[in-house]
């Protein structure tokens, strides 16, 4: 079972690690051909250029927002890991974005990576044999969990019982359809199911003798349809005989992890070393826990957002959680999702009432690089009123500190109905960026080309040097505000959510609505009543938007300013001025014609309505959602706006979850506003099959997806140019879109056991083909945007009787990237990889030696060969301490010659206590 999982994981890793493709855009990355539900996915990429920030954005397919992970640089490669709890059978979408030292960004997929992320098929986790699972399951399930109606009979919560023959009993009387063969009973984390008596009505276990102190019992259930139910956990005390006092200090427990990594990479003569140390410490009692995480990175820099992490989580029972330092809050996708906050977050959950509050810093202020022309630009040399040379500077390259505050208040009634209100405020601190950076350098051009009076010599100056040089010569003009760099912003989002469930959460309805207010430039603060009056028209007449004809007759009435609040009085809440969006939240004309549609289609609103049902092995889901083109949350910049989507899906599981068949229909468009020009429409049909009969048996999964995408454009755009001679010329641009994309994925896994050794064979095939339905009507200059690709791989892993483990991988990846004037077959690159890795254990597993060799040959448009060598050693001086060391090199061979591309050494030490 474990082997199968490992094998699948190896597939993912190998595909992304061993193979390197030459693709445009400066990012070398091959997406994984598949992933396994619940298991982490590691992606790797090589970037051309100096990277200052590398982020991996990921989400469950179909979700609105992203979670983001920092990528780390190791062995000449950027690595990022998507945690297993985000990998579900609904599929995975991710995007990689690199920010380069010149301020530009590149990413994968190429183009707008975040708007059009890479999709990864996710196959179900291999079947777990009952009664052999170890350790407490802590919510890492990837499927939905139904409410459980378990009744704890004995001992009661907090009850004090004697040491001997303690009866633990829970009633399943009110739980429908319990599968007694899949009940799991744990006492203090130890699985005691085999010693327990389990029936469809009750689970009992008699503990022979328990130690004095606090004990925790957990019962985990799965119903006959294969759905997991919420686990039931309770605690009780065991008192000793005589006069033993159970001191709380005896129940105190702690654990921790210390990890330190150092990598040194040499790429084309440039050496880059990265060090990172992380410490996790968890301590407390079952009912009161404190966890701290500290990460220190040598990549921490005042010129980028923090890489170091410092956080503490304090949890009292399940009711109060306080987070301090760096944390990733989850409130509502329309507020914040996947974004790190540095501050404080509190979560009071009384089951019927929940209050979540967050306050902190969303972005820290960055003053900007001090190097040439990064923080200042000399825009103009002119003369002042008395004829002296005046040097006009502009400030740029900075990031404002962004303060953040958010909250949600939720009410739950009868465990069936819940309603909540939420809101957030994110505002840039104008004063967080310094106007003067004395040592920041910029180029001063020769004054002779601009003014007639003598200035200073041209050259590279710092601000301090310029101030000194201009003493007695002329002034420096550096504005107090309205700099050329980014503008300070203010953002408000407010909304509500509600939902209800029936039939023990088998039928769930959820909905949320939110509206945003965004001010893109608050340099000048809030406007007053007079400025509001003239915000949409030029007449200071007490009406906003009132228009007149030439004779002064009123054409449109507008909105009276009388009675409207003065925005300056509410500046602490929101800075309202002409730069805000929306100025008018609703289309008044549409409101009079179709009021309901006008409200629903407010451009700055977002909403969704979702229903889920779990019946007879089916997981049915239907969702309608819309995010208006002007809806903005600064705490979730990855929420796709201007998007309307309808999704219907069903996953049918039979034979104890061994066979699952899924179907999904998704329709999306951006025709929210009546004024949208050439809206696109995209319809996706996906069928998935997965068959995993059990541990140690062959498994099969497949998915077939068709994506039809069109826009309403039926003719070519015409561009008319007028040359300086006055002669007109016409050009045509083909912006019509009508494509059909087919994505096919098949995976077969075969485990074999022979003579005490186990072998696993995994074959995967993935092809993506894009057909242009208008191909016959296109001109030869037209370049299709999407690329066709095909990948096939065979991975064999073996665990021998001896301490030897080996993996062999063969793969071929073919990609056709459309290029102007070239046939698709002429724009094809073929990447063939063969690689092997071996690990040998020594001294009873206290040490391991590993070595590997890979060969990548690329033919077609790009032609080169990579030879990869790697080796490593792992040593455990004692059980909880591990030291690892590895070295690798990649040798690149092209028609120009052979050279060592990269050389990397990595050291790491782990200590767990």
């Amino acid at each position, binding site marked *: 079972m474990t082997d199968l999982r490992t094998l699948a994981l190896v597939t993912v890793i190998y595909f992304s690690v061993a193979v390197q493709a030459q693709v445009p855009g400066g990012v070398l990355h091959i997406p994984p051909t598949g992933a396994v539900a619940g298991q982490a996915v590691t992606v790797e990429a090589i970037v051309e250029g100096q990277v200052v920030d590398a982020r991996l954005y990921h989400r469950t397919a179909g979700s609105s927002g992203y979670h983001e992970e920092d990528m780390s640089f190791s062995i000449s490669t950027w690595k990022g890991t998507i945690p297993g709890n985000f990998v579900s059978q609904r599929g995975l979408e991710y995007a990689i974005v690199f920010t380069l030292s010149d301020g530009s960004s590149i990413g994968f997929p190429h183009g707008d990576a975040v708007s059009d992320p890479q999709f990864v098929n996710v196959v179900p986790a291999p079947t777990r044999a009952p009664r052999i699972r170890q350790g407490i399951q802590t919510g890492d399930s990837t499927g939905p969990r139904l409410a459980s109606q378990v*009744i704890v009979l004995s001992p009661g919560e907090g009850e*004090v019982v004697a040491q001997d023959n303690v009866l633990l009993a829970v009633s399943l009387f*009110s739980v429908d359809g319990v599968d007694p063969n899949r009940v799991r009973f744990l006492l203090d984390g130890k699985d005691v199911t085999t010693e327990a008596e389990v029936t469809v009505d009750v689970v009992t276990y008699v503990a022979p003798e328990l130690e004095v102190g606090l004990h925790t019992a957990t019962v985990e259930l799965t119903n006959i349809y294969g759905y997991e139910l919420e686990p039931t956990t309770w605690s009780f005390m065991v008192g000793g*005989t005589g006069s033993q006092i159970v001191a709380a200090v005896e129940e105190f427990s702690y654990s921790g992890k210390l990890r330190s990594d150092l990598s040194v990479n040499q790429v084309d003569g440039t050496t880059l070393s990265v060090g990172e140390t992380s410490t996790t410490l968890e301590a407390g009692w079952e009912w009161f826990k404190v966890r701290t995480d500290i990460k220190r990175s040598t990549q921490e820099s005042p010129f980028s957002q923090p890489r170091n992490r410092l956080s503490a989580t304090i949890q009292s029972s399940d009711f109060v959680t306080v987070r301090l330092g760096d944390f990733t809050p989850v409130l509502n996708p329309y507020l914040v999702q996947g974004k790190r906050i540095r501050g404080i977050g509190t979560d009071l959950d009384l089951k019927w009432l929940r209050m979540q509050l967050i306050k902190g810093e969303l972005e820290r202020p960055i003053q900007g690089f001090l190097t040439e022309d990064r923080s200042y630009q000399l825009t103009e040399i002119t003369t002042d009123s008395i004829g002296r040379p005046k040097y006009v500077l502009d400030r740029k390259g900075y990031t404002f500190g962004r303060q953040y505050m958010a909250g949600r208040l939720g009410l739950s009634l009868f465990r069936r109905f819940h309603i909540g209100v939420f809101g957030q405020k994110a505002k840039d601190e104008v004063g967080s960026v310094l106007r003067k950076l004395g040592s920041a350098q910029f180029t001063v051009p020769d004054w002779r080309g601009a003014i007639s009076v003598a200035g200073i010599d041209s050259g590279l100056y710092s601000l301090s040097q310029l101030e000194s040089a201009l003493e007695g010569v002329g002034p420096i003009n550096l504005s107090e505000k309205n700099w050329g760099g980014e503008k300070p912003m203010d953002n408000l989002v407010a909304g509500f959510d509600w939902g209800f469930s029936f039939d023990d959460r088998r039928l769930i309805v959820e909905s949320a609505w939110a509206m945003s207010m965004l001010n893109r430039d608050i340099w000048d603060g809030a406007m007053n009543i007079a400025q509001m009056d003239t915000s949409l028209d030029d007449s200071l007449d007490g009406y906003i938007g009132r228009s007149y004809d030439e004779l002064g007759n009123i054409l449109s009435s507008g909105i009276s300013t009388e009675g409207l609040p003065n925005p300056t009085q509410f500046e602490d809440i929101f800075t309202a001025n002409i730069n805000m969006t929306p100025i008018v939240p609703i289309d008044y004309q549409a409101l009079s014609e179709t009021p309901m549609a006008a409200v629903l289609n407010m451009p700055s609103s977002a909403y969704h309505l979702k229903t889920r049902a779990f019946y007879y092995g089916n997981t049915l889901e239907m969702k309608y959602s819309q995010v208006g083109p002007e809806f903005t949350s600064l705490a979730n910049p990855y929420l796709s706006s201007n998007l309307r989507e309808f999704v219907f899906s069903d996953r049918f599981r039979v034979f104890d979850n061994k066979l699952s068949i899924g179907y999904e229909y998704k329709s999306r468009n951006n025709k929210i506003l009546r004024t949208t020009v050439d809206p696109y429409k995209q319809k996706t049909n996906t069928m998935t099959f997965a068959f995993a009969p059990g541990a140690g048996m062959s498994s099969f999964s497949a998915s077939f997806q068709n994506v039809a995408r069109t826009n309403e454009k039926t003719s070519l755009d015409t561009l008319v140019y007028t040359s300086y001679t006055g002669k007109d010329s016409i050009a045509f641009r083909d912006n019509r879109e009508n494509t059909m994309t087919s994505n096919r994925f098949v995976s077969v896994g075969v485990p074999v056991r022979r003579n005490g050794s186990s072998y696993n064979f995994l074959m995967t095939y993935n092809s993506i083909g894009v057909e242009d339905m208008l191909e016959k009507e296109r001109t030869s200059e037209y370049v299709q945007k999407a690329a066709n690709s095909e990948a096939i791989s065979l991975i064999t892993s073996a665990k021998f009787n001896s301490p030897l483990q080996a993996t062999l991988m063969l793969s071929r990846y073919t990609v056709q990237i459309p290029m102007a004037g070239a046939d698709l077959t002429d724009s094809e690159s073929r990447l063939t990889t063969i690689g092997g890795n071996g690990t040998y254990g020594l001294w009873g597993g206290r040490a391991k030696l590993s070595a590997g060799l890979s060969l990548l040959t690329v033919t077609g448009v790009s032609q080169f060969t990579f030879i990869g060598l790697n080796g490593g050693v792992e040593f455990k001086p004692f059980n909880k301490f591990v030291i690892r060391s590895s070295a690798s090199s990649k040798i690149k061979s092209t028609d120009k010659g052979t050279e060592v591309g990269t050389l990397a050494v990595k050291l790491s030490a782990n200590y767990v206590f």
Partner: protein
Amino acid sequence: MFVKQSPLILISVLLGSFLSAQPPASVAVVTKVKGNVEIRKAVSNPAFTPVKAGQLLNDEDFIRTGANAFAVLIYLDDKSMVKLKGDTNLEIRGKRVGKALEKNIQIIGGSVRAVVSQQRRGEFSVTSPTSVASVKGTSFWMVTNSQTGDAVYNEEGVVQLTNLTSGDVVDLLANQTGTSMPDGGLSVAATIAANVPVDEDDSGQEPKELRIRFTDPDGTEKVLIVKYN
């Protein structure tokens, strides 16, 4: 006609066979046992066998406790609890109706304390040869003697006490004692504390307590009570 009905008959026979083959559903579990406590299962074995904690009880199982023995049983649907003192003989009844049990204790003799959760369906009743005590949700003691009749000590809520001979009915309020005689007599008086049986769970060595306050599940406070002797 027979041919037309034969599938229906066949299904009925198969369904009947299937249902009759199902093991009897459990209605309660014994959680505490002290001294000699025995059970006579309703279906399988007519002989009495010793009871251990964790013993599952079915409808119509019969339990008897020896002198100075003690037992606690809990119904599975709502945690209603019945405590048996020594020298008690009773039959446990529980019929599944929907998602609840209709519960009844047929007591021949002895003393029981019923701690009854709010009933979702019907009433919880204790029936003796002399009387029936029924409640919706409360706790009370019932001491039964076939010669002298029954004494019902109500601790909280309302207990309806019916004399089966005369048919007379009284409602017992908290701290009231009802006496039901074999001759049909039924009377109510204030409870004399000394007469109330002692709960073995609460008696004897009262544990001392060490209280540590934390967040309570209800949102106010959670108190960890460490008890020691």
